[in-house]
């Protein structure tokens, strides 16, 4: 298995000119292993789609290189690249049947009619489109159109499959079931895939690794667990899941991996999992809402007042007013817990291993 099956090297894309210069992609470096599914995740305008379109060849990078399976494809036209793309709106050919759509690529490559037929039938079975051969795309449901688009790309047996927000046109339920199907199919075929989305849940459930992008730059690359539990910076922590940020200061370095921290006059000991911090440095302390426990006992040091309660069905969300901040707390399985009322004083507690330190940065709201 090749470690750098797809390799992006210092990829830069600048749009426009003169005063209206936009740096869409800013020095992106990425290595993708063979058979891996990597998601490019970020808010709209973060450069993820531009990156994907550079891999597919529809945009030429301003600078930087793209290698697929060791071959430099930076300047290869899209029709000669070993990549195929599943488009956001499927881009099915409206004047062709389902069968003709899927067989199109093979036909272009001059495959024998017999060969085309067997391969098309095979892929249609694989994605569950059997029996729809002679339908026109307009006669299909959104989910079926999506499968045609996927089949049309997969049949080419590309080295890298590119998916550009392929589920964004489906309704919420279909999205959930289809993303599991895509993941199963991808693992079964073992095809290297780049998946672009702005939906973090989608990225979490699908990916081997996630690339978080913002303002054209890669913020962090990692497995879903790494990204969620050990975000590298404020942006990643804030973008993925819900997060509480407390501002603290490092008072003492106890060892290479252990620190003492001061938050509002309270001192905490903490082990660091990532990064390095200096004594006296200002830091963010990240606590996920589900890691916080609320009790009515007043033994602990952090005390707050319930400001708002939001019932979410499977969870209960509290807004807790602390001395100088508001904490979001989520309680799973609300039936099993004592429910506090608005205005009630509560004690906030959390386990040390659920805390994560981030470098402090000025947040503009």
């Amino acid at each position, binding site marked *: 298995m090749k470690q750098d099956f797809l390799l992006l090297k210092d990829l830069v894309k*600048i749009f426009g*000119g*003169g005063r209206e*210069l936009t740096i869409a992609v800013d020095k992106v470096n990425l290595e993708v292993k063979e058979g891996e599914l990597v998601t490019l995740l970020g808010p709209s305008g973060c450069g993820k789609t531009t990156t994907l379109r550079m891999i*597919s060849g*529809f945009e*030429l990078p*301003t*600078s930087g290189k793209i290698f697929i399976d060791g071959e430099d494809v930076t*300047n*290869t*036209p*899209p*029709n*000669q690249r070993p*990549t*195929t*793309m599943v*488009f*956001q*709106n*499927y*881009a*099915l*050919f*409206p*004047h062709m049947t389902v069968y003709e759509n899927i067989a*199109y*690529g093979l036909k*272009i*490559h001059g495959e024998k009619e017999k060969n085309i037929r067997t391969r098309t039938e095979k892929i249609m079975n694989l994605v569950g489109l059997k029996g729809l051969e002679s339908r*026109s*795309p*307009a006669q299909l449901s959104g989910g079926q*159109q999506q499968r045609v*688009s996927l089949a*049309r*790309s997969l049949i*080419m047996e590309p080295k890298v499959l590119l998916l550009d927000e392929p589920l964004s046109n489906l309704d919420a339920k279909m999205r959930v079931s289809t993303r599991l199907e895509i993941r199963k199919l991808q693992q079964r075929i073992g095809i290297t895939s780049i998946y672009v989305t702005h939906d973090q849940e989608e990225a979490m459930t699908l990916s081997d690794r996630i690339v978080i992008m913002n303002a054209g730059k890669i913020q962090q690359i990692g497995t879903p667990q790494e990204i969620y539990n050990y975000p590298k910076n404020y942006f990643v922590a804030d973008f993925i899941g819900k997060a509480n940020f407390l501002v603290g200061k490092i008072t003492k370095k106890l060892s290479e991996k252990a620190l003492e921290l001061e938050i509002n006059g309270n001192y905490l000991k903490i082990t660091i999992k990532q990064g390095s911090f200096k004594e006296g440095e200002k830091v963010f302390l990240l606590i996920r809402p589900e890691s916080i426990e609320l009790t009515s006992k007043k033994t602990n040091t952090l005390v707050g007042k319930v400001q708002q309660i939001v019932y979410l069905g499977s969870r209960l969300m509290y807004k807790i007013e602390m001395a100088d901040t508001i904490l979001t707390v989520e309680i799973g399985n609300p039936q099993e817990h004592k429910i506090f009322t608005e205005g009630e004083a509560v004690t906030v507690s959390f386990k040390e291993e659920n805390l994560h330190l981030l470098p402090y940065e000025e947040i503009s709201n």
Partner: protein
Amino acid sequence: MFTKNRKLNEIIGNLQLIWKEPLLLVSILLIFYFLLTFVVFPIFQVFKASLIVNQKIDLSNYLAIFSKRYYYQPFMNSMILGIYTATLGTIIGFIFAYALTRTPLPFKNFFRLTATFPIISPPFVVALSAILLFGRAGTLTPYINKIIGDYTIYGLNGLILVETIAYAPTAFLVLYGILQAIDPSLEEAAMDLGASRGKVFSTITLPLSTPGIASAWLLVFIQSLADFGNPMVIAGNYRVLSVQAYLQIAGMYDTSRGATLAILLFIPTMVAFFLQKYWVSRKSYVTVTGKPTGSTIKNLEWYIKLPVYTSCLIFTAIVFLFYGTIIHGSFQTLWGVNPALTLKHYVEMFQVARDYIIDSLTLSSIATPIAGILGIFISFLVIRKKFIGRGIMEFISMLTFAVPGTVVGIGYILAFNQKTILLPFILTGTAWIIIILLVFRNMPVGIRSGIAALQQIDPSIEEASTDLGADSNTTFRRITLPMIAPAFFSGLAYNFVKAMTAISAVIFVVSGKYNLITVAILGFVDNSRYAQAAATCNLLIVIVLVALGLIQLIVNRIGKGVRTIDIIG
């Protein structure tokens, strides 16, 4: 420095891409060569000729523009005519468009067809009819004499009447599109907030359609300036630029003066064209998506309906009167003298003008598909491909749309009566010069409909094809072309109509060997053989209608598999 390098890199990158598709590269180069030779070069020749007096380069023609009556008078006359025609035409067009989009006018299709009919008819039919109705032996002349006394239809008043009828449909089409694209819910919102019908019109409908009105006005103004057929028939002593330029060249053999008049015609037309294309359209709030928004027409007050409906009825009646007169006139033995019905004009027409009819049909049939395919291919390149000079390509190919026929015609005789580096053989006198002229004059129609169609199709559909391994030409043939087939065929239809009814430019390049039906009609009119002229006009209208019908049939047939574009794209 950074930016410069980047631009350079991008250019090199794009070049490399094109280099890998030699067929595309060749197509682009070939199209540039065609545009240079058949669009830019002739116009350049007109400029050159206007600067040459007595075989020397000389600015005297231009210095004389304000002092010599033979220059400034036609210029002023054309302007006055243009302003009147554009204003009246836009008003009528707006009333029609409003009636069809915002009122429960009955028989809408009937009114729409009538309002657009003058577009497909030969340009001077209306003028011919005006002579039959209001001329010296006109049917209505005695009645009008009783009311307003002596008058003549020849001159400015007659021209304004005739051109307004001929070009109001252009304004109508532009405004119809604009009004249809304005979401009625905006007007409903205004009404909901308490605005009266009049307030809704003055604060919502009118401001939103102002760019459209300006656009329509400028387009009619351009058409009026460029009109050759109507002034040729009915201008009398009222001298306009297009006719004067023609007379200088065809009658006086004064190329220099003719070219200068052509340039005087060229400049205001281009100004109007650029205003329309780059200024007015940028001000537009309405994006024409091609998808008509659902309109909700509530009960309108009678004081709105009455004037709007009456105007529509009157204009429709006038259109019927004018075209009816042409039919009626073609069967009368001698107009205004002997009303006995006869077929002899049709017989004479076939005797005299048979060759003209055959030439027109043959040459138009050759030119139409070439113009159609070239037009749609250029629109594909311009909208979907990245290459150096793409903007220039679009600009030049749209240029022919705006350049008055007279300028193009003069340009063609100047450019192709000698061998040049661009074209190592002489075209003048051959059938090719007519075909090429028709192709490059009518091509912008195909480009426009192609661009409109392509803009409605999501580019990712074509990208999908490229992504699956097809090169640009394959993608164009297998994906783009089938999807824009309806636009392609309606472009063809319009091309054919334009080719058959062309006069202003082709009149310069016809020869004894190859001549055209419109020139024959003009000849009949010139000899006061109005009945034969009317008969030939009718034949031309029938040919055009049959061709349109045939193409409509094809579109309907192939349209079945293609109508899905809106749903998916």
